[in-house]
């Protein structure tokens, strides 16, 4: 890849040919506001907020490739004015009750609004026009609130480019443009697989998880469902797992997850979890101490081995437990003298 020289905001820098202005700026730590750009996806160029001046012309930084000798200014008066008006226009068509929004303080629109300098005085000049007030709560996991949708198309591109389903597309046109399924049906009736990739990428509160809880810390681990072995980052609050996101650094899944990996964690806190050993007494499983339960098991094992030989014992390892768990299980039973060890690999 050839190196080219560009000048950004008066600084001469070198960059790789083929990079966009946005990418170059980002690599230099220069913030360019944008609402429809996402690094995982193809570019769209619709929000018109990442405009910069390149060689005297206004261009969208997310799409424009750099050229040798290009002079880029990211904050001219024209650029600032356009960005400001475009963000204001989005806000005129956006539910503005930020406090009650699940995306509050984690919202790209808030971030960009603050950066471009939206003020209440300027907003007052404009008319409020909410073009779509539909709320789709059909999916048990997440909801779609169109009064907060900025039609950036990130969800559309995610569904097509990441998941390959394309359960949603732009529907209708002009100010009626919306994100729709066939027949504009609730998302649950569409081909949506509830993988949550779109929810993850939505820049506003238009797509949010129902009953979302913000974690206080995160722990990296691996998904416990299928054999793909996706990297997970568990969000923990107190002693509960409250969220999951994909581990972008894990080469297995690059951050992608399916419905089970992303949303199938609340069994951890299910009231039916076993919390104490149980021993059958008089035909009924009864709570017992570890000491009692394990002593009983140890005694029985020894009894059967001694009376009937080690092959009267058998054990099932688990395709869901760790290597360490499985290693110890087979070590234990082999040590007792039997190879009667198997598991459900075949199922």
């Amino acid at each position, binding site marked *: 890849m050839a190196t080219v020289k560009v000048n950004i905001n008066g600084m001469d820098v070198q960059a790789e040919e083929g990079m966009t202005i946005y990418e170059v700026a980002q690599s230099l730590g220069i913030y360019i506001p944008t609402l429809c750009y996402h690094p995982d996806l193809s570019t769209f160029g619709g929000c018109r907020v990442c405009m910069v001046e390149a060689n005297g012309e206004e261009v969208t930084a997310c799409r424009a490739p750099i050229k040798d000798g290009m002079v880029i200014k990211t904050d001219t008066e024209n650029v600032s004015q356009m960005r400001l008006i475009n963000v204001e226009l989005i806000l005129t068509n956006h539910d503005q009750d930020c406090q009650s929004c699940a995306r509050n303080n984690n919202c790209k629109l808030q971030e960009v609004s603050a950066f471009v300098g939206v003020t209440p005085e300027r907003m007052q000049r404009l008319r409020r026009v909410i073009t779509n007030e539909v709320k789709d709560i059909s999916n048990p996991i997440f909801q779609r609130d169109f009064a907060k949708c900025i039609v950036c198309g990130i969800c559309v591109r995610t569904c*097509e480019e990441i998941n390959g*389903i*394309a*359960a*949603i*597309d*732009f*529907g*209708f*046109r002009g100010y009626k443009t919306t994100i*729709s*399924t*066939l*027949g*504009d049906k609730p998302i649950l009736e*569409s*081909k949506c697989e509830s993988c949550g990739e779109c929810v993850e990428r939505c820049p506003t509160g238009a797509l949010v998880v129902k009953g979302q809880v913000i974690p206080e810390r995160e722990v990296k681990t691996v998904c416990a469902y299928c054999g793909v072995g996706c990297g997970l980052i568990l969000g923990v609050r107190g002693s509960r797992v409250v969220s999951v996101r994909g581990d972008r650094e894990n080469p297995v899944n690059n951050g992608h997850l399916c419905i089970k990996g992303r949303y199938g964690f609340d069994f951890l806190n299910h009231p039916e979890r076993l919390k104490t050993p149980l021993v059958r007494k008089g035909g009924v499983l009864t709570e017992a101490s570890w000491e009692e339960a394990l002593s009983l098991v140890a005694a029985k094992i020894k009894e059967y081995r001694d009376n009937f030989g080690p092959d009267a014992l058998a054990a099932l390892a688990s395709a869901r437990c760790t290597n360490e768990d499985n290693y110890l299980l087979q070590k234990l039973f082999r040590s007792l003298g039997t190879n009667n060890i198997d598991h459900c690999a075949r199922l």
Partner: protein
Amino acid sequence: MDERVKNILASFRGHRSEIIPILQAVQHEFGYLPEQEMKEIAKFLRVPESQVYGVATFYAQFYFTPRGKHEIKVCLGTACHVRGANKILDALERELGICCGETTSDALFSLEKVACVGSCALAPVVMIDDNVYGRLETKKVKEVLGKYA
């Protein structure tokens, strides 16, 4: 699959670029685009359902609910606008008892506005099915409708 759709699809090759002609053919046959038929088109073209709908809803020509027997299109082109097309539209709405975009309860007429039918010199113009009525006046609305009742 509906035989009619089957026949329509049989005359196409299954390329994505045929989506608009197929939608036109299906609408011509059914009068609108039923959901089930759009699903069949999606399967036939191997295009996601949502995108078939995305394309269909983009273009003003397509309808998603059954239409009246006769389609009234009130031209609201510039020439028609400055020569009083809105008054004609008002009169039609009054006469039919429906709003623009709706269909009469007897399913006889659908009323809609169009950007321009290209008969600007005869403004204001109303198209009913394929017939163009030029230099229309509010007084004549009833008489014109009478031809289709």
